[in-house]
C-alpha cells in the first residue's frame, strides 16, 4: 500500500533550535524536517527534550535560538493560537479534555477556530449561526464515525476509560483539520489492544486525510512500524535521523537507550 502514498516537500523545518530554562539546557542546536504526508517519530530516553521540541513547534515555548519554517513561512516566535490557526494541532501526554463535557462537545471545541460567528451568535443559535453549527456537527460526526466512538457520543468524557479519552483527544485534534498533527505519547499507558487500535487510527488518519504526523512515542515496536522517518534526541541533542531500520542499527541510539555513561 505504501507505493500509493506520495510523501511531498518539507512541511516543517526546525533549524538549529536551542531552548533553555535558566541554566537548564533543554534543547541544544537541533534541526529536523518533517515532510508532507509522512509520519515522523521523535524518540529518545526520558528527559531527552522530546516534549519540549513539540512545545517549541506549536509555539508554547519560545526558543532562544534558531528558526522554524512551517509551510514556507519562517518564524522565530510563535503563539499557540497562531500555530493552531496555521494548521498545527496536538494531543497531550496527559489527557487534557473537558471532563464534564460529552465526547461530542469536546470534539466540537476542536472546530472552534473554524467557526466564523462569534459566541454571541452561537448563544442565540439562530439563522446563520445555526446553519454553521450544523455544518460543523456533520464534520464532527464524521470524526466520530472514523474513530468508532459512536457509542460514547453523549457520555461525559470524565466517565470514560483512559484509552477512549485518548481517542477523544485525537478526535478533537482532527476536528481542527490540521496540516500537521503532533501526538505526544498517544499510546502511553494503554494495553496491547488499545495500542493496536490507536496505531490503526494514526495510520488511517495519515492515509485518509493525508495529515502529516509528528509523533512522540516510547514503544519502539510501534515507532518502527508506523514511522517513515525517525529522529532520536538524547540530552537535548539530536543523535540520529533517518529511516527506522537505519536508526535502529545506529550505535549512538543503542548507547543512549542502553545507558552508556556520558562524560
Amino acid at each position, binding site marked *: *500500500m505504501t507505493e*500509493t502514498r506520495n510523501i511531498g516537500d518539507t512541511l516543517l523545518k526546525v533549524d538549529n533550535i536551542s531552548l533553555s530554562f535558566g541554566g537548564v539546557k533543554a534543547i541544544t542546536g537541533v534541526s529536523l524536517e518533517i515532510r508532507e504526508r509522512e509520519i515522523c517519530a521523535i524518540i529518545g530516553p526520558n528527559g531527552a527534550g522530546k516534549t519540549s521540541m513539540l512545545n517549541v513547534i506549536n509555539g508554547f515555548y519560545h526558543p532562544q535560538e534558531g528558526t522554524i519554517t512551517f509551510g514556507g513561512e519562517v518564524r522565530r516566535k510563535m503563539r499557540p493560537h497562531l500555530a493552531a490557526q496555521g494548521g498545527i494541532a496536538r494531543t497531550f501526554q496527559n489527557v487534557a479534555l473537558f471532563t464534564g463535557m460529552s465526547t461530542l462537545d469536546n470534539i466540537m471545541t476542536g472546530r472552534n477556530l473554524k467557526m466564523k460567528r462569534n459566541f454571541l451568535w452561537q448563544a442565540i443559535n439562530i439563522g446563520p449561526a445555526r446553519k454553521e453549527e450544523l455544518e460543523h*456537527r*456533520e464534520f464532527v*460526526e*464524521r470524526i*466520530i*464515525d*472514523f474513530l*468508532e466512538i*459512536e*457509542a460514547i*457520543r*453523549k457520555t461525559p468524557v470524565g466517565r470514560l476509560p483512559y484509552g477512549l479519552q485518548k481517542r477523544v483527544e485525537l478526535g478533537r485534534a482532527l476536528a481542527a483539520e490540521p496540516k500537521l498533527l503532533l501526538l505526544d505519547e498517544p499510546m502511553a499507558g494503554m494495553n496491547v489492544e488499545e495500542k*493496536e487500535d490507536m496505531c490503526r487510527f494514526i495510520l*488511517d488518519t495519515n*492515509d*485518509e486525510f493525508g495529515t502529516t504526523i509528528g509523533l512522540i512515542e516510547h514503544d519502539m515496536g510501534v515507532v518502527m512500524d508506523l514511522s517513515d522517518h525517525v529522529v532520536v534526541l538524547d540530552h537535548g541533542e539530536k543523535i540520529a535521523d533517518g529511516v527506522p531500520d537505519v536508526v535502529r542499527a545506529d550505535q549512538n541510539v543503542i548507547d543512549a537507550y542502553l545507558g552508556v555513561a556520558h562524560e
Partner: protein
Amino acid sequence: MTDRQDSLSSLDTFPKLLLDHGINRPNRVALREKDLGIWLTWDWSQVVENVRSLACGLASFGFEREDKVAIVGDNRPELYMAMMAIQSLGGIPVPVYQDSVAEEMQYVLEHAEVKFAIVENQEQADKVLSVQDRCPNLTSIIYNDPRGMRHYRQSDLFAYKEVQARGHQFDKNNPDYFLDEIAKGKGADVGVMLYTSGTTGRPKGVMLSYDNVIITCRNANARERFRDTDDVLAYLPMAWVGDHAISYGQALCAGYSVSCPESSDTVMIDLRELGPTSFFAPPRIFENILTNVMVRMEDAAPIKRKIFAYFMGVAKKSGTKLLESKPVPLLDRIMYSIGKILVFGPLRDTLGFSNIRIAYTGGEAIGPELFEFYRSIGVNLKQLYGQTEATVYVTIQPDDEVNVETVGTPVPDCEIKIDEATKEVLYRSPGVFVGYYKNEEATRETKTEDGWVHTGDAGYIDDDGHVRIIDRAKDVGKLNDGTMFAPKFLENKLKFHANIREAVTFGDGKDYVTAFINIDLDSMGNWAERNNLNYGSYVDLANRDEVYAIIKGNIEESNRSLAADPSLAGSQVKRFLILHKMLDADDGELTRTGKIRRKIVFERYDDLIEALYSDKDLIPIEAKVTFENGKEGVIKAELKIRDTEVYSSVQKAS
C-alpha cells in the same frame, strides 16, 4: 404480459411482496439506519428503487438464476436490500455470521459455492479476500462501506454504488428485465440458505423455500398480531434464522419497519431512541441489561436505592398479575401506578422498552428471576422455541399463559409429538426446511419421510398442552449411581447467578458432578472495584481467592435448590474450578450463537477434567488462544480447584 401480472400478484415470493408494498404503502418507512448520528430512512418506494438498480447491476455481471451470494456484515439496510435484489433474480442469499474468522467463512463460501459476496466493509472484504483462492466459484466481491478501500486494486472488487450505477444503465437498456425475473420466481423455490452454527461438526446449510418462510411468517404475524405499524430493531446476526424471520420475512409479510443500529456497540442507545414495539433477545442480553441496571443502582444515592427496592417489591407482588389481567386488590393497583410513575416507567424508557408490545426470548433457558423482573415492570416477555430447520417458530407462549418453565404451545399449523422411547421432541409444520445443502444423509437423519423433524431436544408436553424442554437428548447422561445427569439444566441453574457467565458441567459416567466456571467480568469487576480489589485482567481476577469464595457461595445456593428435588439431588456440583479464559467462539469452544461445544471443551481441557476427579487442588496449565487478528498465543497459569458443600434432600426437608 398478463401471465407476468398474475405471477406478480400471487405474492408468493419476497420480491413480489416488496413490489406490493411499493404500490400499496410507498411512503411508509421500510428501513432505517443511524449514520453520522442521524436516523436515515428508506420508504418502500425507495427500497424498490434501490433493489431494482442493484438487481440490474448484478444482472450486468452475468448473474444467473440459483446463483448463491454470500451476505457478510452487521445488520445494514443495504444488505437487507441486497437479499431482496438477489431473490429478485432468482438467486439464493447465504448470510454468513459476520464475526466468523476467515477459516470458518471459507468453509461456508466454498460449501455453498457462492458466486458473489456482498460485504459490509473493509474488515469483511479482507476476510473474504484472504480465502478467495480457496473459493473457486467466487467471481466478484461487492463492498458497501468504501472507507479504507481506496488502495484496493483487485479487479474483482466493486463498490455497491458502482454496481447500482451499472444497474441503472442495464435497466435503461432492458426495462422489462427486473419484473420478468421476479415473475419467474415461485413459492416452492429455495429462497435462502442459512448455515446452522452446529454444536457438533461442520455447519450445515439449511435450505428454506419461499413457502417455508412466508407461510410461517404469516402465521406468526397473525398469532402475535404484527401489523405494518410495528417497529423492530435488527441487531442480531443476519445469518441467524431469528433475524431472517423477524427483520426480513415477517417485515416483508406485514410491511412493518426495520431499523439498523449505528454500530454493534450502540445497540442499547439506539434501542432507547427508537422504542421498538417488539424485541427479541437471547436470555444473555436480557441478563446483561439487568446487570447494567443493577450495577448502576448500586452507585445511586441511598434514597434512590430505597425507592427502587421498595417499588420492585410492589412490582414483584402485582406486576405480572396486572400484565396478565388477573384480579389485583385496589391498594396494590394504586401502589403499582405510583411505582409506574416513579420507577417502572422511567426504567422502561431508559431500557428502550417504552413502546414495547411483545418481547421474546429463546435459544436458552431463562432464569426465573430475570423473567419475572421484566414481566413485573410491564414488559410482556415471552419464551419461544424454534430451530433454523423450522424457520424459527415451533412454539410460542400465548399472551396470557406465560410460565417460565415452558416454551409455550405450538404455532398455527405446527404439530408436535414426543418420541416415547427417547423423549425427543418432533414437529411437523409448513416451515419445515427443504433439506441440507449437499448433505442428503443429514437431511434423512433429521427429517422423516412424512415430514417430521427431530429436534434433538428431550422434553415433554405438560397437562396444559405446553411444551417443556429438558436438555439436548444426546447430552443427558447418568452418574455412576444411576442419577440422571442433565448438563445444560445444571449449567443454566448456575448461570442464573449474575456472577457466573458460563458454566460447563461434567458427570456422565462419573461418581459426582463437577463444573468449569467463567465469571462475569462486568458484575465481578464492579464488585472488585467496590471492594478495592485490584486486578489486571480476566485471568488475574478469576484466580482470586475472594472470587472463588463468592462463586462457591453461588454454587452452593444452586446445590441447595437441587437438593429440594429428589430426582436431581444426586447431581449437585461437588468440585469446581474457574477457567483461566472465557470460552470463546473464536477458539471453537462456543458456537457463534453462544452454545457450548462439549466435545471440543472435553478434548481441550481433558487434563483439567481429570484433575477435577482427583484430589489435587492446584494444577498448572498452558492454553492456546486465538487472538482476533488470527494469531495464536499461549496463556500459562496455575488453576485452583475448590470443593463445594453438597446438601442431602433430607437436610433440606428438615
